[in-house]
């Protein structure tokens, strides 16, 4: 086993995990909303981009932004439907509502796009780079760069702009924010739209790695959960580090121990974390 190759694999996997997780962690941190439809939104992002490419002949580099916008609009609709329990911060109820939404998306996507695996093709997926014994693709480079750029921009916005301060204030205390003249409902919509758009971007960059199915989504995003909790809810830098960490763990555990049980192992680590430090998730 080439250790350097595994490290590269780990970084590649990790950037994917981080990118898919970022929307979820911001949403959880800012609105305390656990979005169980995240996996299905990832699936929808991939399929919208694929559909636009195959039915309308749009090229990949335009299809992905279109998917991002489409899912952002979907986010507006969803958040509008959920507004009342969000304002009441009825977190458990909201969680189950998103579970319901996810199930609707699963059925709806299967209806719309069929149940067969489809090839979501990015021109960069097959463009390989070989340096000595190690190799990766331009798609991996794009994913890594995209992840770092998105994280960088997000960090700057959250920590250096007034908009970011508004989001952080609502995350800390939505009621108090209202007294400061902040419309918390608008903030929640904005954060939810970000989540949907970010996961669509994640799908656009990561999904081309393998055939896409309307039944997918669960496997692709359960590791999101691990990244978010281990990295610290709402923490941008935390998710980046945890994402890469998890990517390296997956690559190494898979190569050294067993590739089948990596998800179980990752979740076991997560469970241990949750059990030993449940306060890590407590609403402030």
């Amino acid at each position, binding site marked *: 086993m080439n250790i350097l190759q595994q490290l590269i694999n780990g970084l590649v996997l990790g950037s994917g995990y981080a990118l898919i997780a970022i929307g979820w962690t911001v949403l959880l941190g800012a609105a305390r909303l656990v979005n169980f439809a995240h996996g299905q939104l990832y699936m929808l992002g991939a399929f919208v981009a694929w559909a636009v490419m195959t039915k309308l002949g749009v090229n990949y580099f335009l299809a992905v932004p279109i998917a991002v916008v489409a899912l952002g609009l979907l986010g507006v609709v969803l958040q509008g439907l959920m507004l009342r329990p969000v304002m009441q911060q009825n977190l458990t109820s909201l969680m189950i509502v998103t579970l319901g939404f996810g199930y609707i998306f699963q059925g709806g996507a299967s209806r719309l796009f069929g149940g067969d695996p489809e090839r979501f093709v990015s021109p960069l997926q097959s463009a390989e780079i070989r340096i000595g014994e190690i190799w990766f693709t331009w798609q991996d480079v794009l994913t890594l760069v995209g992840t770092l750029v998105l994280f960088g921009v997000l960090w700057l916005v959250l920590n250096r702009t*007034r908009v970011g301060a508004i989001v952080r204030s609502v995350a800390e205390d939505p*009621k108090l*924010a209202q007294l400061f003249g902040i419309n918390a409902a608008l903030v929640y919509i904005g954060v939810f739209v970000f989540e949907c758009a970010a996961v669509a971007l994640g799908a656009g960059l990561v999904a081309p790695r393998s055939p896409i199915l309307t039944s997918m989504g669960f496997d692709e995003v359960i590791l999101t959960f691990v990244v978010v909790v281990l990295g610290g809810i709402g923490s941008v830098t935390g998710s980046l580090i945890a994402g890469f960490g998890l990517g390296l763990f997956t690559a190494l555990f898979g190569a050294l121990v067993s590739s089948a049980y990596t998800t179980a192992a990752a979740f076991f680590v997560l469970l241990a974390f949750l059990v030993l430090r449940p306060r890590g998730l407590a609403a402030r």
Partner: protein
Amino acid sequence: MTVELEATGLSVRYGGNVAVDGVDLAVPTGKMVGMVGANGAGKSTLINALAGWSRGTPVVRGTVRLGSTSMDGLPPHRRAAQGLVLVPEGKGIFAELTVMENLALVRPPADPTGRHLFSMEEIHELFPRLAERRHHKGRMLSGGERQMVAVSRALRAAPRVLLLDEPSAGLAPRLVYELLETMRKLVDRGLSLLLVEQNVRATLELVDELYLLERGKVVARGPAQTMRNDPRILEAYLGSLTG
């Protein structure tokens, strides 16, 4: 004499419990109105209801008017935008944001007709200590400093009426006087202020009018000079000394 804030028949219910029962209240322009009463009299509930705000889910009845504009049905952030600004009891600023960020959250109104726009220079003049704390997070500030920031951000919203809920809570007596005297200065310059306080003595010395609230009802009201001799106020004063 114009009235800047008026409430008529204000009632607040939590579940089956009536916390405020048919209160009429008026804050004249440029005056400082105080409200005192024992713990549980409903003072906080009342002032929160004026701002349309609560940490719970109360049922509020009655009308609230800011100048000639009705506030009924407006959510708290809209009332704040209109100039009805509340500094709540307890937590009034964000612990994870710096002083500067807390203040920057508030955007002064685009159309400040009839309202005084407090510039950052004025804020620094009023509370010079805040300049050195600009980049400190809320949780790193002392109780007194947090109150200064809380009041400052309220002033940045160019309030027509400022609602202050127990600003003295947890503050050393000297700081309490400093803060309330600063407020008095602002009132003398034209700000309208409603102050809910446990500290009856300080309130009596500085306000123009006083209300005494007992079990959700106004049991006494009047100009400060008259109220100073009201036996019920003296009782409340004694109560606040020993209670």
